[in-house]
């Protein structure tokens, strides 16, 4: 449980840094908030950056682009996917 909370917090910080969301703080992102569309408002280039982030920080290489819609749904879904698939 604590491990998952730490991962969620780590992800929020990484996303803010990697995607240059300068006006945001980790506390502004809810765990179940949609990352794309009406939620955080990320775009398609941000999605590519998140794919890079998964590989760089967690050793996860996404091979099926269709997967990303589900994985990047929210911080919760990202954290669950990373926890189940991380190699580093």
């Amino acid at each position: 449980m604590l491990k998952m909370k730490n991962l969620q917090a780590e992800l929020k910080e990484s996303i803010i840094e990697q995607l240059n969301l300068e006006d945001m703080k980790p506390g502004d992102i809810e765990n179940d908030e949609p990352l794309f569309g009406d939620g955080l408002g990320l775009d398609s280039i941000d999605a590519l950056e998140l794919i890079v982030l998964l590989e760089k920080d967690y050793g996860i290489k996404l091979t099926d682009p269709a997967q990303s819609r589900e994985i990047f749904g929210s911080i919760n879904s990202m954290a669950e996917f990373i926890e189940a698939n991380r190699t580093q």
Partner: protein
Amino acid sequence: MQQDFYIKNWVKIKNGKVSNSEKVIFNSSETDLSIFFKAVYNFLELKYPKFHKMDGLSKLGILGAEILFREHKISPDTALILSNNASSLETDRQFHESISSFASPTLFVYTLPNIVLGEISIKFKLQSENAFFVSDSFNAELLKNYSESLLTSGKSSEVLCGWLDLENGEYDVFLCLVSPEINMPFSEENLKKLYFAENEKPTSRT
């Protein structure tokens, strides 16, 4: 009958100094580009989160256009005719460096100089003619002729034209808003006069 056009307003950004046709509006000794850009962004009280994701050239374009456009109601047909020497080299180099580990998609999308035209168009809701020329040095004749042809043909009611260069952390920006509204006559001579005024190191690389 030949119609006359005028430089309605202009902006220069160089060596930490931001000025318009009336005065210096912002001055900073900050040499770190990203800090300087953010300081100008804050000074202009911009609220545009996408700005922080842009490369340096686009940030300069947005800041310059904001200063020119905020005081005037602009028409969606306002054309953008920009030029520089370094193209998108600053970002090209950063992207090249990123390839050695993980190629950055964010940097990749800015590896063309004309991306700044798109960013300005999105921010100010322009649906207009645009072009970005890469040349050795400031070419007043090119800017004057191209802008004038758009204005006289009726394709654009106003034109934002000028020089937007960034390389090795040095930036040299001179943008002007050309319009039928009377002010300084839009001529090669006046474009050169404004660009070279107080510009100790005009961009010129061959």
